[in-house]
């Protein structure tokens, strides 16, 4: 029963109360860069889910079986970045070959995922929290889903904002940052809900 509670906590935390973008303020760069249109937002979100799940899995396994036995925990950041960067390269090659339209629409943003702190944070989460393999997979998948959720919300609002009469000093990024701040405030309120 406790294990199930843990699972549910992980899922809800990753999606709502500890949303990687809106609560933890990570991954803001692609968040603001790709959220102008719903289509590119969806593509970016799915790419992040794919990358974060796969990278976290690989980095977790490598950490447990390569770094820990030799007491090389201090190498984790370098190794994680190496794995993450190559994962993104793999995705770029796969996208270019199998879904060229998606690649054309968001090609510039794929490298952004690499320098995206979401992936590194998730990879280090799994070590810091001491999750087992299943929990690691779940955590990373739903952190990616939380990112997608934030992107969908943001792009929905931004598409509408484009058509409004915004005062000149606020056009473009300023209004996007304000919007993100307001949505974040709403998500912090979700964190005050008690389930168990």
């Amino acid at each position: 029963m406790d294990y199930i509670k843990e699972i549910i906590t992980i899922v809800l935390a990753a999606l709502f109360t500890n949303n990687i973008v809106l609560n933890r303020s990570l991954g803001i760069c692609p968040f603001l860069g790709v959220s102008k249109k719903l289509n590119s937002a969806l593509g970016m979100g799915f790419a992040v889910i794919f990358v974060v799940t796969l990278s976290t899995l690989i980095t977790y396994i490598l950490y447990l079986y390569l770094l820990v036995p030799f007491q090389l925990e201090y190498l984790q950041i370098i190794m994680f970045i190496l794995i993450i960067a190559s994962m993104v390269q793999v995705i770029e090659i796969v996208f270019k070959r199998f879904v060229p339209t998606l690649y054309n629409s968001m090609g510039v943003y794929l490298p952004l995922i690499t320098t995206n702190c979401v992936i590194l944070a998730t990879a280090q989460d799994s070590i810091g929290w001491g999750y087992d393999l299943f929990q690691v997979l779940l955590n990373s998948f739903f952190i990616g889903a939380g990112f997608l959720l934030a992107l969908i919300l943001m792009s929905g609002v931004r598409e509408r904002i484009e058509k409004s009469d915004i005062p000149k000093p606020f056009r473009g990024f300023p209004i996007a940052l304000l919007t993100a701040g307001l949505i974040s405030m709403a998500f912090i309120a979700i964190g005050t809900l008690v389930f168990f």
Partner: protein
Amino acid sequence: MDIFMIFILPAVIMLALALLIGLGLSYMDMKLTVVRDPKIEETLKLLSGANCGGCGYPGCSAYAQALAEGKADLSACNPTSKANKDSIAVLLGLASSGEETVAVVHCSGGNKCKDKYQYQGYGDCKSAQLLADGVKACAVGCMELGTCASSCKYNAISLKQTDGYAFVDHDKCTSCGACLSACPKKLLSRIPKSAKVYLACSNSCSGKDVAAICKAGCISCGKCEKSCNFDAVKLVAGLPVFDYTKCTACMACAKVCPRRVIFTK
């Protein structure tokens, strides 16, 4: 903990990992890479790679493709150097390596043109345009409220209060095209940088109508066409059109124009 464990083992592990990943990626690249016409890749290397979108295409990659397909012109791209443009023209077998162009405002009415009303309000030319088609009595008259000037990232457009119309500084203009889409009356266009004359009026109405509302408008008298010995000026729909391939910059048209509406650069 001996030397091996502290220094050599971590280095070996990282090296092995990096090599493995590198080889894996190269293999994937070989097997899964999409083969595009190598000319497009060559063109892409010669383009400036700024991805500014000034050409109207989403990034240099799309522009390179359009160039290879013959859909785009080299003059649409400004950041690329002339030498590179020449190389691209040779590579793709294009006719010309694109003229260097600058933007000009085809209006010199300003204070010499009558106003329909005084505009006091929020905004600029785009807002005034919504109100009964603009401030000026001329339907294509420059209102000098600054939409073009604020769209110019290079501060190349000046609004001189003494003249009443916008003017482009050709030393600063990079022909990016931002002002062309900014002007609600579409008064700006690109002309070759080497061109020495251009028409500073866009009103093709009859001479009588134009003279009634603007002291600086073209009245379609045709003296420019008659004065040109090189067949470079032709009247089309009441306004002189310049053929810059024939123009020798003798300035005969500018001197003979009774309204002084042919400007020299």
